[in-house]
């Protein structure tokens, strides 16, 4: 395989990315779309819109031909981890689906449901062909002839980019696959893998209970691989650079470059950055415009983990280092809480939003999350003080592991990290001292305050 990689680089087909590799070895590079030092985001500036197929192939060269075993070996050797939130190895999904019998279903999950995350949207809107390259390779690995690209129906820019890219590839007969585009509802849990697979099967975009992994048997009865758009874009890069050189652009247990969305109290909330090399969370924050550690950082998503600002400044953006602080890379969200804001107030808002995003299928989640949100709000407001804290802790324990999907678990993770990282604030709120930061405007934009949780929701139809 190394031979193939060398020949690809040597032939000058990826001159640009070859330069990237040389430049970033051992050093940290962080940049946005079209900025130097980037890999996935390299290429034209955002104002250029979706990169056309010819330009894309001009920069990256055509996909080196490989058989299914070759693609699987590449995914394995690169240790490519899923970038949708779970961090699950792509190679294991592909291998499991291949072994499970029946024709697999392959879905590109571009339905970025984490409200503050914008990385998959950036890829869909600006680098759609890199995503589709990876999808074509995954199709090769699975031996399937059709690929479904799934995204939110209101995600205008990525929808435009991806549908244009799909049309270009259909016209050029570029891949041996039939492309389909599916549009689903933009609810938080509707982007979860089993919800996406279920939606494609019967139009119901709620997570599914299942005794077996989707890659063994999905809602349609066929092995189903739902892979995040960024994950597949990396596969497209790995096919050009080679597994080893790609993995070397990462750090330790987090191989390869990664996309992060910086949000909250930063100059450009929602700015997507690509990190290559051994970078710390502090490096990312500096790239986001900070010059000193903030109050705290929310890592991995709204249902993520708070990390104290000073600790965040030092911690490597690497899976095992983050896990020492109880955090996971998740979807790469980096949410900055300034010193002047209250973590309890902010978390209470997030928990209330997430409670409203329960699909309402599982009793404990449907009933328990709103109560957990109420307990957090009481704690933040300083009412029912000790009882609120005890209640939040007890509810968190009951909610953990109670759902068909990981939604309640994610909220519990957020609540537990809130209570530990903001322990001093908890003490102050318990002592009945008025919150010094009560007047601070909300730091994280929570969508759909107008929405009312009505328990069940059904999605629309695939197009």
């Amino acid at each position, binding site marked *: 395989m190394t031979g193939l990689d060398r020949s690809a680089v040597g032939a000058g087909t990826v001159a640009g990315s070859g330069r990237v590799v040389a430049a970033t070895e051992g050093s940290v590079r962080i940049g946005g779309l079209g900025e130097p030092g980037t890999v996935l985001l390299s290429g034209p500036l955002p104002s250029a819109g979706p990169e056309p197929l010819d330009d894309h192939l001009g920069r990256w060269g055509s996909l080196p031909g490989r058989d299914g075993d070759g693609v699987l070996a590449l995914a394995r050797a690169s240790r490519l981890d*899923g970038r949708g*939130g*779970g*961090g*699950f190895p792509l190679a*294991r*999904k592909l291998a499991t689906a291949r072994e499970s019998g029946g024709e697999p279903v392959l879905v590109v999950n571009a339905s970025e449901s984490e409200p503050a995350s914008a990385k998959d949207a950036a890829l869909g809107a600006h680098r759609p062909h890199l995503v589709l390259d990876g999808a074509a390779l995954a199709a090769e690995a699975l031996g399937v002839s059709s690929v479904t690209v799934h995204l939110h129906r209101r995600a205008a820019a990525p929808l435009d980019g991806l549908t244009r890219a799909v049309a270009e590839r259909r016209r050029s007969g570029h891949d041996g696959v039939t492309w389909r585009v599916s549009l689903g509802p933009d609810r938080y849990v509707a982007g*979860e*893998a*089993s919800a996406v697979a279920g939606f494609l099967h019967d139009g119901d975009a*709620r*997570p*599914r*209970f*299942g*005794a*077996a*992994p*989707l*890659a*063994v048997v999905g809602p349609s009865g066929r092995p189903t691989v739902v892979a995040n758009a960024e994950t597949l874009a990396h596969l497209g890069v790995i096919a050009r650079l080679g597994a080893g050189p790609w993995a070397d652009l990462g750090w330790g247990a987090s191989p390869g470059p990664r996309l992060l969305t910086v949000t909250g109290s930063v100059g450009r909330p929602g700015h997507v950055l690509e990190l290559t090399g051994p970078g710390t969370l502090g490096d990312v924050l500096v790239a986001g415009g900070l010059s000193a550690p903030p109050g705290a950082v929310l890592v*991995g998503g709204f249902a993520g983990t708070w990390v104290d600002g000073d600790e965040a400044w030092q911690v490597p953006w690497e899976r095992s280092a983050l896990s020492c602080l109880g955090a*996971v890379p*998740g979807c790469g969200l980096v949410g900055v809480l300034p010193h002047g804001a209250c973590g309890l107030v902010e978390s209470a808002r997030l928990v209330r939003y997430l409670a409203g995003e329960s699909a309402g*299928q*599982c*009793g*404990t*989640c449907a*009933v*328990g999350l709103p109560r957990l949100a109420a307990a957090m709000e009481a704690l933040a407001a300083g009412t029912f003080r000790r009882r609120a804290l005890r209640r939040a802790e007890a509810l968190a324990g*009951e909610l953990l*592991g*109670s*759902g*068909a*999907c*990981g939604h309640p*678990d*994610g909220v519990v*993770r957020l609540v537990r990290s809130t209570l530990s990282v903001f322990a001093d604030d908890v003490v102050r709120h318990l002592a009945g001292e008025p919150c010094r930061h009560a007047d601070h405007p909300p730091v994280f934009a929570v969508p759909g305050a107008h929405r009312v949780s009505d328990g069940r929701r059904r999605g629309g139809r695939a197009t």
Partner: protein
Amino acid sequence: MTARMRINPTRCRGHAVCALYLADAVEIDRWGFGRVVEADLDTRRAVRRARRAAAACPNGAVVVADDRDRSGPPATGSDPRTGAGRW
């Protein structure tokens, strides 16, 4: 014989019939919904009782399946080590 028991939380409506058959393996939470605390059924007797509970649940929420793959993360909920949900 080994098998694994799960409660499908999307079906459970809190009738708590399972707890009559499986007092040691199932607990009922404060809202009445069942939760499996001991999923592994290692004896014939345990499997038999779980199958009775499955038959008795008015919503068909109790699932008893032959244990095939113990190595992966749980298919539902999320894996506490990685945060990975269903794959």
